[in-house]
């Protein structure tokens, strides 16, 4: 009996160490990537990078100010489009629907998620660009927003479903209507997971190039309003990275760093602003 216990304890310690190894490897990869970006692009990050427009090759300096603003605009518009659809759709699945409808919606979301980003771009192109005969920030936001929907939807549903029954039943016992229960009890209880998913979706689309090539197109200059083509960080990275010029390569790495920085900031801001919430007993 004691030997068996010792064995089980051994297995337990071994497996738990293994999980630590897994975590370590994952985090190590990230730090490696960050380090690589810093090493290769760090020197190109200066004031000019954030404030100047791109310069043609051969001229020192120049920056990606328009691409930074462009990416910010694209992400904002994409979230305004994709998050409500995903979130409210997820609420429907978790709270109001029967299993048949839920299956169909879930399946559709999973399918949408697997569409290659370039096909989403082609779709957005034929829907939003072709009829109006010009590329625009809105078209790019539409494509990115589409890509945010599946993650947001599935995760919202998942985390809403994970809220303990006692919370629901408690609220209803106090006489709250269904939607009030959802709004003030269930969603806040699940907000952490949902927020994580939204931020994950945002992070993913922030780095996508292919959907923007035929929607937001690109712009060497400032983009006015929402109806003109706009520069964006991923497209600039792509254009510069595959060019022959060493200076542009460094700017591409720098842009990668800035993009990560942008996402980091959004993460921090979102989590601190929304850090209220019902503490769920662990």
């Amino acid at each position, binding site marked *: 009996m004691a030997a068996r216990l010792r064995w089980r304890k051994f297995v337990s310690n071994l497996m738990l160490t293994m999980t630590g190894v897994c975590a370590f490897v994952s985090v190590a990869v990230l730090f490696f990537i960050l380090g690589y970006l810093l090493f290769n692009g760090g020197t190109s990050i200066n004031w000019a990078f954030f404030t100047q427009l791109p310069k043609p090759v051969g001229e020192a300096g120049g920056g990606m100010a328009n691409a930074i603003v462009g990416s910010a605009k694209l992400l904002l518009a994409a979230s305004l489009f994709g998050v409500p659809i995903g979130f409210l759709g997820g609420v429907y699945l978790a709270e109001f629907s029967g299993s048949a409808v839920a299956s169909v919606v879930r399946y559709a979301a999973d399918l949408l998620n697997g569409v290659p980003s370039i096909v989403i771009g082609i779709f957005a192109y034929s829907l939003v*660009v072709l009829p109006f005969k*010009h590329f625009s920030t809105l078209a790019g936001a539409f494509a990115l927003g589409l890509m945010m929907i599946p993650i947001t939807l599935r995760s919202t549903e998942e985390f809403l479903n994970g809220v303990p029954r006692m919370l629901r039943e408690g609220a209803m016992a106090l006489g709250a209507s269904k939607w009030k229960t959802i709004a003030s009890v269930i969603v806040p209880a699940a907000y952490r997971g949902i927020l994580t998913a939204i931020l994950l979706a945002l992070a993913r689309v922030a780095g996508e190039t292919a959907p923007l090539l035929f929607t937001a197109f690109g*712009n060497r200059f400032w983009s006015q309003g929402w109806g003109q083509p706009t520069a964006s960080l991923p497209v600039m990275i792509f254009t510069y990275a595959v060019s022959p010029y060493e200076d542009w390569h460094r700017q591409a790495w720098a842009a990668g760093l800035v993009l990560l920085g942008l996402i980091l900031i959004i993460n921090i801001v979102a989590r601190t602003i929304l850090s209220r919430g019902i503490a769920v007993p662990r």
Partner: protein
Amino acid sequence: MKRLTGALLALLVVGVLAWAAQNPLLINGAGATFPYPIYSKWFDVYHGKNPSIQFNYQSVGSGAGIKQVTEGTVDFGATDGPMNDEQMKAFQDKRKTSILHFPTVLGAAVPTYNVPGVSGALNFTPEALAGIFLGKITKWNDPAIAGPNKGVNLPANDIVVVHRSDGSGTTYIWTDYLSKVSDEWKGKVSRATSVNWPVGLGGKGNEGVTGLIKQTPNAIGYVELIYAAQNNIPYGSVKNSAGTFVKADLASVSAAAAGAAKEMPDDFRVSITNAPGKTAYPISSFTWLLIPAKIDDTGKRDAIKGFLKWMLSDGQGNAEALSYAKLPKEVVQKEEKAISNIQ
């Protein structure tokens, strides 16, 4: 962190200011990646001289350039391979006017390789290149390669062929050349921006091809001249139609164009691979801007015409610094006359 916040605040202000600034005329163009560096230079300089005009060119590929200008989502296109009759007709049908080609600069495709023990420029005959890319010549010490390279110690290793995986004008130039010098290539593979390669790995972009070649011993591929020049990649000489082994550089590429200039068709669609001339580099090509013959917006039309005039005179002066060959005089003159065709 503070710096970052400060930077963000600054760009917010800048963004607002830019928004409030007056609306310049924005002219969008799409097309080939090959001339992107020189175009971005030109448009930048031109914008400096004419601050109310913005030419926004994006290098999305020659095919995309043709497509977008046909659809009308951009005001002009750019391509490394001239539009064929089918595409010209499609444009005519869709936009009720014709499309005009304007050559801008010249470029070339060069053979680059990574052969252990070989550091200099190898000489390649057309037969050798065709044979290698067809997969029929498989070893570096094959007589077809060794013959013109006496004195070089070529190993008996298997050749690893690398080509472009993405559709590209460079591929068009390369396959156009091979189609001219090898009937077998013409029949089996032919010329296009994307072909069914008999052998080889695909690298994405010049970067991808160079990366693969650098890392793979015994590899051979093709890249744009300016790419090889800017990155100090060793590349070989090719035997031209006059029998001389020529290494690609600005002079030899211009020589190839000069031969073609005399016989230039009015619509400027011409292939100059395997051009006549003792000093001509045989794998050269023009690159073109695609301008619709009728432009409704008079502001845009005049801006485009103004740019073309400038490009053909002052603009050509920027080319060589970026490793592009200038247009020959005869072609420039012919183009200047053709500008009046834009209504």
